[in-house]
C-alpha cells in the first residue's frame, strides 16, 4: 500500500510525518537537529530514502545534512559554499553596492535523475550544485554573471534564491526565483540564464515593469506541462504559458492577491492552490480566516476551501516553501504555518485536518509519495 512522508522544516528543527495512503493517522518523528533552523528538507525523486537538509543557525552558520535511510539517520556533508571567482557586488537596501556574502541555504533541489546531484539555492542569491552527494558544492556562476546581478536587491527577508523548478522533459532547462530579483531560466543546464519577468508589474519599483527587481515569492509547475508556470508574486498571482516569455495576472476574485505559496494539483494541471495573506504589512490571513483558495481554471476563478481550517481568530502566516502536494489519487495537499500547524487534505483540498498543531514556526513542507 502506498505511503506518504511529509518533510517539515521549522525554526527549531526538522520533523518527519508518515502515514499510509489513507492519510488519516500519522507518525511523527523529530525534532531532528533540535534547536537549528531547518530551511528546507527534500528527498531525491529517484531514491526516496536519500534526503538532503539545510541546517543553519545565527551562531554556527550553515550545515548540510544527508540521509540514506529516509531520515532515520543523518550525516553532515560539505558545508562550504564559496562564490565562484571574485563575488562582486549587488545593491544594498540603500541602493549602494554591497559585496556578495553567503548567509544560508534556502532551498535544496535533488536532481530528477541522479541522487548524488543536488542544487542549492542560497542567500545572497546564487545557485550551487553538488554532483557527489554533497561532498563538495560548486557555484553555477552564470546566473549571477549574466549581467543584471549588480542590480539585484534584497527584500526585507534577505536576497535568497528560494525556488527551483527542473523541467522533466528537458534536462537543460531550469527555472529559479529570487527575492527580490525575479525569475530566471536556463536552457543550457545552468551555464547561461535569462530573466523572464515580462508582464510582471511591481508598483514599488522606480520602473514597475523592469527586467529585474520583482519580488517573486514562489513559482510552480505541473510536470506534464513544463512550459506553464504559476507564480505568487509579492502582490499578484500570475501565469505564463510560454516558459516565462510573457506573464499575465490571474488573481481574479481572490480576497487579496498577496501571499507566499502556490502549488499545482498532481493530476489536474489547471488546478492550483494559494493561501491569500492580507498584505505585505500584515502577514496573516484576511479576517482571521485561514483559507486555501483553489482554482480549477488555471487562475482567475477561485473558490475558498475552509472545511477543517480555523475560520476565526487565526493570525498565522504560510511561508513560501510551506506547501506541498502528493501524487496519490486523490492527491493530498499539505501546508504548514508560522503557528506550528501542519494541515493535510486527503481529498485535494475539499477538507482539512491538522497532522500536528504545536511545532515551531514552519519554514518548509515537502511530501514524498512512496510505493
Amino acid at each position: 500500500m502506498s505511503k506518504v512522508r511529509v518533510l517539515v522544516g521549522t525554526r527549531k528543527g526538522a520533523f518527519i510525518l508518515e502515514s499510509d495512503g489513507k492519510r488519516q493517522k500519522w507518525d511523527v518523528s523529530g525534532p531532528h537537529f533540535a534547536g537549528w533552523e531547518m530551511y528546507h528538507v527534500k528527498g531525491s525523486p529517484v531514491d526516496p530514502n536519500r534526503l538532503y537538509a539545510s541546517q543553519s543557525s545565527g551562531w554556527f552558520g550553515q550545515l548540510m545534512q544527508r540521509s540514506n535511510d529516509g531520515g532515520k539517520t543523518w550525516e553532515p556533508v560539505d558545508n562550504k559554499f564559496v562564490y565562484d571567482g571574485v563575488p562582486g557586488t549587488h545593491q544594498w537596501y540603500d541602493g549602494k553596492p554591497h559585496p556578495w556574502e553567503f548567509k544560508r541555504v534556502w532551498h535544496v533541489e535533488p536532481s530528477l535523475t541522479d541522487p548524488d546531484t543536488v542544487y542549492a539555492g542560497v542567500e545572497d542569491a546564487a545557485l550551487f550544485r553538488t554532483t557527489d552527494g554533497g561532498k563538495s558544492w560548486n557555484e553555477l556562476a552564470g546566473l549571477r554573471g549574466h549581467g543584471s546581478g549588480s542590480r539585484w536587491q534584497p527584500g526585507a527577508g534577505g536576497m535568497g534564491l528560494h525556488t527551483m523548478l527542473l523541467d522533466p522533459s528537458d534536462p537543460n532547462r531550469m527555472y529559479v526565483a529570487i527575492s527580490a530579483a525575479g525569475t530566471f531560466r536556463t536552457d543550457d543546464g545552468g551555464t547561461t540564464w535569462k530573466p523572464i519577468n515580462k508582464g510582471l508589474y511591481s508598483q514599488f519599483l522606480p520602473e514597475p515593469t523592469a527586467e529585474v527587481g520583482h519580488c517573486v515569492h514562489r513559482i510552480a509547475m505541473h510536470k506534464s506541462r513544463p512550459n506553464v508556470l504559476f507564480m505568487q508574486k509579492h502582490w499578484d498571482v500570475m501565469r505564463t504559458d510560454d516558459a516565462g516569455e510573457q506573464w499575465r495576472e490571474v488573481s481574479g476574485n481572490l480576497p487579496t492577491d498577496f501571499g507566499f505559496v502556490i502549488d499545482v494539483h498532481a493530476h489536474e494541471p489547471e488546478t492550483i492552490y494559494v493561501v491569500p495573506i492580507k498584505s505585505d504589512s500584515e502577514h496573516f490571513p484576511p479576517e482571521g480566516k485561514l483559507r486555501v483558495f483553489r482554482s480549477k481554471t488555471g487562475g482567475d476563478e477561485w473558490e475558498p476551501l475552509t472545511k477543517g481550517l480555523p475560520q476565526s481568530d487565526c493570525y498565522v502566516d504560510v511561508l513560501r516553501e510551506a506547501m506541498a502536494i502528493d501524487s496519490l489519487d486523490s492527491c493530498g495537499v499539505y501546508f504548514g504555518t508560522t503557528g506550528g500547524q501542519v494541515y493535510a487534505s486527503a481529498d485535494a483540498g475539499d477538507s482539512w485536518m491538522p497532522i500536528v498543531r504545536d511545532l515551531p514556526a514552519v519554514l518548509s513542507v515537502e511530501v514524498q509519495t512512496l510505493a
Partner: protein
Amino acid sequence: MIRVVLPAHLRTLAKISGEVELEVKGQVTQRSILDALEARYPMLQGTIRDHVTQERRAFVRFFACQEDLSHESPDVPLPDAVGSGAEPFLVVGAIAGGIY
C-alpha cells in the same frame, strides 16, 4: 593536553560528550587549537570560524581563565594554564537576547 569545551549544539554535531582533549603542536594559540579541533572533527569546519576568512563567527566567543579572548589576535599565545591543561579553552555561543 589542551582541553576544549564546546557549546551543546557543536558537541551534538561532532557526536562528543564532555570536554575535548587535543594535542597541539607548537605554540598554543586560538588558531592552533581550532586547527587541531577541526582536523579531528571536520564537521566543525565553518561553524566556529568562517571557511574562507578564518575569522571567528560573530556570535561565537572564546574564553579562558575568566577572560574574554574573543577580540585577541588568533595568533597571540594563550595563557600558560590553557597550554598545560589546567584551564580549558571555552567556545561559547553568544547570548541571543530573546529573539530566538
